[in-house]
């Protein structure tokens, strides 16, 4: 699973992109954030308040209950501020 971080999530985690293999118990976005938070440090900080975290799976906006699996590209970012 490819995981990408943008804006302050990238800064807090210190990672812009990684290949990760979460355990089989991680089946949705919420589960993934929990697993990442469990790493502690900047990851715990980045995923501390999920109300300001948005996710995309395979480049589509999704909710926290959206399924994730091994081949997916998952991105985490704050609410968008373009335009």
């Amino acid at each position: 699973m490819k995981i990408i971080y943008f804006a302050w999530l990238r800064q807090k985690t210190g990672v812009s992109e990684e290949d990760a293999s979460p355990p089989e118990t991680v089946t949705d976005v919420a589960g993934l954030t929990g697993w990442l938070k469990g790493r502690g440090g900047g990851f715990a900080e980045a995923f501390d308040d999920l109300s300001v975290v948005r996710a995309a799976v395979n480049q589509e906006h999704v909710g926290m209950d959206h399924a994730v699996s091994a081949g997916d590209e998952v991105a985490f970012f704050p609410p968008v501020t373009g335009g």
Partner: protein
Amino acid sequence: MIRVQRQDFDVGAELAALSGDNRGIGGVCAFVGLVREMAGGEPLRSMSLEHYPGMTEKALARIEAEARERWPLEETLIIHRYGKLEPGERIVLVATASARRQAAFESCNFIIDWLKTKAPFWKLEQTGGGAEWADARDSDGAAAARWFRDAKGKQLD
């Protein structure tokens, strides 16, 4: 047409190319977004626009397609820049062309409203106090929400 680019764009040339030889166009509505000199009450030195290559293009293409489904449009254009920008610089151009002016106005307004809440761009603002990620505005969410129901009253995400 969708373009995501670092470099500036020439509004006059883009609008001329948009209309081209299409003589069915009665009105073109264009919106140009510019970097303002103030950010959260402090003078802005510059901003850096980060985006999600790949998803950005998909998101803009989907917004454009939605606009074309809702209004009878002859031509549409979205250009969005990324990278470092200074006050006064152009950030985004949205232009829509239609036989009728109201379709051009509404669709252009719709595209920029949806872009503001759906296109994966993030602004890092540099002021005298340091660099801060811009907060999403509630007013942008409200502006986008105005368009959540289509003509048939179907709820759209």
